[in-house]
């Protein structure tokens, strides 16, 4: 609250200054009970600060009485806040903080501390990097890559930043290339102790601290070595870095320029002397700014944000969100991909399933066609039987009528003509039925393509096994290395095979198991493929064999006598031959047919 009042009065004072006498202003100032506040960065604690800077305050109060100069100690953040809140008029701080505050709050340095140890340039701040003397593996700052180091604090000027810049210059990034950086804080002697006790490989301290400790008997200089050691003309301490200007004293924008001028004059007039604080003209703090820029700290911290790492550090919540979004998007994309893939696969599967089902239906239709043809060829259909029975009955009836009339002596030429005419036309009618059946059997357009007959045989075997409740054993024998492809209509040859196999099964029905075995043999004779269906069944006598291929000849009680004639016509239409013979041992029959082989070279 008091500060606010003071600031306000300051503004008022400055406004009045433009209108009134300076003396009046000074009088008004004199009544300010708080006086001129001197903010000090007390890096070594309040007591040390007071002991260090009280001679300066005393001197100011002595030379410029009535202004009530007094010390206010702050840590780094406290000092910044005090300046922001305009609670201090003068600021004494280290060069690093100074350049930060200068750019941020518009401080103006009016003098630089004059160290008794300073080099000729007036510069007195540097860093020294210590290692234990026996660490001969560590010579230069670049040797610190992968090592552990100790320092005061990330923002400590002499106790870290100066050395850090030198490390950077030697190619070792102090933030990433070292194994570990321990910030041990003040007092700085902790760092020297850590090196001494081998807790770390190296330690960064303000220049001249080792010499000071040695003088005070805390350490022996022989125990330590300095990395990248250098000397600066007129500077008594060993260094690992160049020198930088010492602490400045600066004025805030709020202070009266006249007073600022007076303060500067008073400070510069402070007598020099051993162990006494003295001030010189303000030095150039550009090197400090460069250091900060190189290290991307302080006013140049924003540079850090430009690197991916810095950007990541600054924007990590955003980045995290972005990453989350990205991850979400990726997951979504992957999921969509996956779904599309899966649906595509499902679609393909269902298409394939449908295709397979259609193929099955087609196969079944083919099979049904086979079976129906087979049933017509091998067994009686009532309709067909009727159609064939009618002319057969008429023929027989006419013929017998003729015989009876002849026997009774009542046969007239008219009756003979009538009967013979009828018999001829009924015979024609019957053969018409047979032609229709044959045509039916051959209804398919003539197809001639290379067909694997072995596969046909296997299929026929399966179909027969599927059709019969108890199917006898069917053995398929194929000559080794036989090329089984023939130029034919697979369906028709299949029909022939089914017919022959079924005949063989019928011939051996009811016999002992060993005589029910049916063999289908595939051999080659010249350019012809020979297929034999061999049974061990009842066999046929010579008369039966002779009439075997005649239409309507049958040995089966329910047979139509058309199967074999049709089979023969199919095989002959293929340019082949179908014949039957009794097996050599006289048991059972062998039905053979041959087909022209398909010459793959053609």
């Amino acid at each position: 609250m008091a500060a606010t009042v003071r600031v306000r009065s300051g503004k008022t004072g400055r406004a009045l200054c433009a209108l009134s006498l300076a003396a009046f202003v000074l009088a008004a100032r004199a009544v300010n009970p708080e006086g001129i506040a001197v903010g000090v960065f007390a890096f070594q604690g309040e007591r040390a600060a007071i002991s260090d800077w009280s001679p300066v305050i005393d001197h100011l109060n002595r030379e410029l009485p009535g202004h009530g100069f007094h010390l206010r100690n702050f840590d780094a953040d406290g000092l910044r806040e005090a300046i922001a809140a305009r609670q201090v008029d003068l600021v004494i701080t280290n060069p690093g903080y100074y350049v930060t505050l200068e750019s941020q709050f518009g401080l103006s340095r009016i003098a630089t501390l004059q160290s008794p140890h300073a080099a000729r340039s007036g510069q007195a701040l540097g860093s020294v990097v210590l290692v234990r003397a026996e660490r001969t593996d560590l010579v230069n700052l670049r040797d610190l890559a992968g090592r552990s180091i100790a320092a005061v604090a990330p923002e400590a000027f002499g106790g870290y930043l100066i050395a850090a810049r030198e490390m950077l210059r030697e190619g070792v990034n102090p933030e990433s290339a070292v194994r570990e950086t321990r910030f041990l804080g003040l007092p700085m002697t902790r760092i020297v102790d850590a090196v001494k006790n081998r807790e770390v490989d190296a330690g960064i301290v303000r220049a001249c601290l080792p010499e000071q400790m040695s003088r005070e008997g805390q350490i022996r200089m022989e125990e330590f070595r300095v990395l990248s050691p250098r000397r600066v003309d007129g500077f008594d301490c060993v260094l690992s870095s160049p020198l930088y200007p010492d602490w400045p004293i600066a004025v805030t924008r709020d202070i009266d320029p006249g007073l600022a001028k007076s303060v500067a004059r008073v400070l510069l007039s402070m007598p020099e002397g051993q162990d006494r604080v003295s001030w010189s003209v303000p030095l150039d703090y550009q090197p400090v700014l460069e250091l900060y820029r190189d290290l991307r700290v302080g006013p140049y911290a924003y540079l850090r944000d430009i690197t991916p790492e810095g950007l990541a550090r600054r924007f990590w919540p955003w980045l995290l969100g972005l990453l989350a979004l990205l991850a979400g998007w990726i997951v979504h994309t992957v999921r969509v991909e996956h779904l599309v893939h899966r649906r595509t696969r499902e679609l393909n599967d269902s298409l394939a399933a449908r295709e397979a089902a259609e193929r099955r239906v087609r196969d079944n239709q083919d099979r049904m066609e086979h079976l129906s043809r087979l049933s017509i060829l091998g067994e009686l259909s009532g309709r067909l039987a009727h159609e064939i029975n009618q002319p057969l009955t008429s023929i027989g009836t006419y013929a017998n009528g003729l015989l009876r009339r002849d026997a009774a002596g009542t046969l007239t030429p008219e009756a003979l003509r009538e009967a013979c005419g009828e018999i001829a036309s009924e015979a024609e009618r019957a053969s018409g039925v047979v032609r229709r059946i044959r045509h039916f059997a051959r209804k398919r357009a003539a197809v001639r393509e290379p067909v694997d007959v072995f596969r046909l045989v296997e299929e026929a075997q399966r179909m027969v096994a599927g059709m019969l409740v108890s199917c006898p054993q069917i053995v398929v024998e194929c000559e080794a290395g036989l090329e089984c492809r023939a130029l034919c209509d697979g369906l028709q040859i299949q029909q022939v095979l089914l017919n022959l196999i079924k005949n063989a099964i019928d011939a051996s029905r009811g016999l002992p198991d060993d005589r029910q075995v049916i063999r289908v043999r595939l051999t080659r004779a010249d350019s012809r493929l020979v297929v034999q269906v061999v049974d061990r069944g009842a066999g046929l006598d010579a008369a039966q064999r002779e009439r075997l291929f005649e239409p309507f000849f049958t040995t089966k009680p329910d047979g139509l006598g058309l199967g074999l004639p049709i089979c023969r016509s199919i095989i002959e239409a293929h340019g082949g031959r179908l014949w039957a013979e009794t097996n050599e041992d006289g048991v059972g029959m062998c039905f053979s047919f041959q087909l022209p082989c398909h010459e793959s070279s053609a």
Partner: protein
Amino acid sequence: MNHPPEDCVVHVVDDDAALRRALRFLLDSVGWNVRLYASAEEFLDALTPPETPSCLLLDIRMPAMSGLELQQVLSERGIALPILFLTGHADVSMVVQAMKSGATDFIEKPFRDQVLLDAVAAAVRRSAEMLADSGRREGVRRRLQTLSPREGEVARLVALGEPNKVIAAALSISEKTVHIHRQHVMEKMGISSAAELARLMLLADPSALD
């Protein structure tokens, strides 16, 4: 009772014209009087109750009215005509039904001629018997119609084997009167025993003595 073959009619119903003609050719050769019909309907249109022995040679399978249906119609009309069915190979179930419905016989195509001719002859004989029975029945009915109502009542009880005494009590007449009626019945019917009377009455009407 013997009829010459040319008096006996063999009706042939078959939708196959060639087979119809062939059947006539064969049946002609042994002298039967053959009549051909292309369908069951044609046959029904020309049908009159048989007056001479005859039979029907009927194809079991036909496009419009089948042989079985024709058999059914004839049965409904009370026409007594022996039927021989011509059947194909796969008609077993139809044959069974035809036989249950009173078919005389069935002949499977293709048939041996002798089998067919024998079957036709048997059917015609059967027809002749049926005609004879039918003629006798008519004669008995005519004679039964000459009995007076009282004679009819007495005749029924006599045929049932009742003694005169019981008949007299049942009809509330004297035994003597019963005896006279009985004599008249025997005279009119041309018979001499109660057993014979019973046979004739059953011939005329199978339910006469119920």
